[in-house]
């Protein structure tokens, strides 16, 4: 029995060609079942339980909750208010969001989890700022956290979703990281009154040199080849 379209010989009893799916005009009676029975069993592998990761997540959750609760109870009993235990409790909550929450989902999606992580960090810093009576959150903590979040997200997006021109983008990212140190020092200056652009200049020059080298390399095939040889990707 041959397939009229592909020209290959088919198994006796085949209902259609497995290559082009052209139906066989006169299949043998009881054909398909017989063929399947003969060649392969009906046994389907059982899906494995993924209990390990949930067990670990549960264990970490219990440890974090125990630490937070014991501190809160201690402070409420001895001082009559949350006091320093608030930092511990929220710190544990922050750790839970960072470490445990992603485990509860089947796939780690950076574009969802990373902004959430940084938002929680900003919230935690806001709580500390409010508790200590400081005024550094809006002018320093928030912009610096946002800056680090942007750089991290850009780096992750580049590595995961961009295939072409990665070296060029990486060089620009390195330069941006260098320049962001100046921004951090600027926020430090307006918040705490420290002198402008002292330590950040060293960072900027170092990062910009590396970034420019990568940028030039991305345009020069021989340098790109050398980088590929040395770092093979």
């Amino acid at each position, binding site marked *: 029995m041959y397939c009229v379209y*592909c020209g*290959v010989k088919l198994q006796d009893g085949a209902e259609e060609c497995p290559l*082009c*799916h052209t139906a066989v005009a006169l299949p043998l009676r009881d054909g398909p079942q017989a063929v399947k029975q003969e*060649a*392969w069993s009906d046994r389907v592998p059982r899906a*494995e339980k993924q209990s390990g990761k949930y067990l670990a997540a549960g264990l970490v959750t219990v440890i974090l909750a125990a630490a937070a609760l014991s501190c809160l109870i201690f402070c409420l009993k001895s001082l009559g208010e949350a006091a320093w235990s608030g930092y511990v409790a929220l710190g544990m909550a922050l750790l839970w969001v960072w470490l445990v929450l992603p485990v509860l989902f089947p796939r780690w999606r950076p574009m969802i989890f990373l902004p959430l992580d940084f938002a929680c960090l900003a919230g935690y810093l806001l709580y500390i700022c409010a508790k200590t009576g400081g005024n550094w959150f809006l002018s320093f903590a928030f912009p610096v956290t946002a800056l680090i979040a942007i750089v991290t997200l850009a780096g992750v997006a580049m590595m995961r979703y961009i295939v072409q021109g990665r070296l060029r983008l990486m060089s620009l990212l390195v330069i941006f990281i260098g320049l962001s140190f100046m921004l951090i020092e600027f926020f430090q200056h307006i918040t705490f009154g420290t002198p402008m652009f002292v330590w950040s200049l060293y960072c900027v020059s170092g990062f910009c040199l590396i970034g420019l080298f990568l940028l030039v390399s991305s345009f020069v095939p021989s340098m790109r080849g050398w980088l590929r040889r040395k770092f*093979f*990707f």
Partner: protein
Amino acid sequence: MRKQWYRLDNAALIFPAVMRKNWNNVFRVSVTLRDKVDPETLSRAAEDLLARFPTIYVRLRTGFFWYYLETVNKAPKAEEDYAWPLTPMSRRKLKKCCIRILYYQNRIAVEFFHSVTDGHGGMAFLKNLTARYLTLKEDIAVPAEGEIVDPAEAPRREETRDCFQLCGAKKGISRAEENAYRLRGNPEEDSFRYIVTGIVPTEKLVEKAHEQKVTVTAWLAAVMAEAVQKRREEDPHPGRRRHIKITIPVDLRRTFGMNTMRNFSLAVNIGFDPLLGEYSHGEICRLMYHQLAAETIPQRMAGRVATNVNLQRSLLLRLVPLPLKTQAMRLVYSLSGESKGCLNISNMGTVTLPEAMVPYVERFDFVIGVQYSYPNNCSVVSWQGKTCINMIRGIRDSELERLFFSLLVEKGLPVEIESNRR
């Protein structure tokens, strides 16, 4: 029995690092006998070989810096085969044993996690398992000749060593090469693997290859490359990766005159750039043949081995803890490991057995699993004048198989098709 442990050989290092929940690098060798397989006798045969093949009966263990293999005290029991080959071996299963012994009707199959051995080692083990099974079941005397060994003797030292450490050149050669066109399709959600087997007469296959003055492997690679090129032309979004390249695993045992039961093979990529112009069948055959011949000379192979071994020996890399090393290996593998070829063609060659076993054996099969990022693979094995070309895929679309086997028919080869369609 005292537990022994082995470092992973150089080729095996990558496989535990890159494995996923629903995918890992496994392959399968199987033999179809003339009579129904008795599972109890098969389990006994497997148990009898436990001491003789310590590097095969192993489980995967995790160290601080590297993974390693540890011998198991009991051979895995023979279990009924699944509805499709090469179901993934989970980490939990690998912690128990890295091989699976399966039976279904007349067929005995062994599936290996690739860190244990390569196709050659796997086939040698299957031959010995079959020999022991036939000895127990049919009461025949199988002489210890060729790859059949005496199960009572101790394993030879050369069988358990990592030969990659012995044959590297003084200097490594670059691994840089162009990325290849990536085959795509809609994956099956439950990791179902379609297996389409084309059976062709070996004599006619050899004749066709010799007409073009090339080897069978080069000829099959050329036909496959033509099929992939046609597939690329049909693809509405072929992407920028245009090179049509076929990955050929090369057994290094013959190249370096060494024998081991562990991994000792390297893959080479051969192909062409379709944008340079149109190629005739003869031109593709010659191109494949000469590239394969040039890439597989011992000097180049030694250079490639040296590149891999030097990296493994780097003090900096050795001192990095395993979780970090695993992430780094994953990154490198996703960026470069699977992007250099469109698919594999692994040709086992012609299987030989002692005369006493021949009347009991009907057929051999060899199947390599699909890679993580490309959905098709092909493996070839010949026995008693018939060549089984097994094409496996993890996607629904069978267009590549259709193109490949139709091309074989067009070139005058009679092809008989079997499949496990659901």
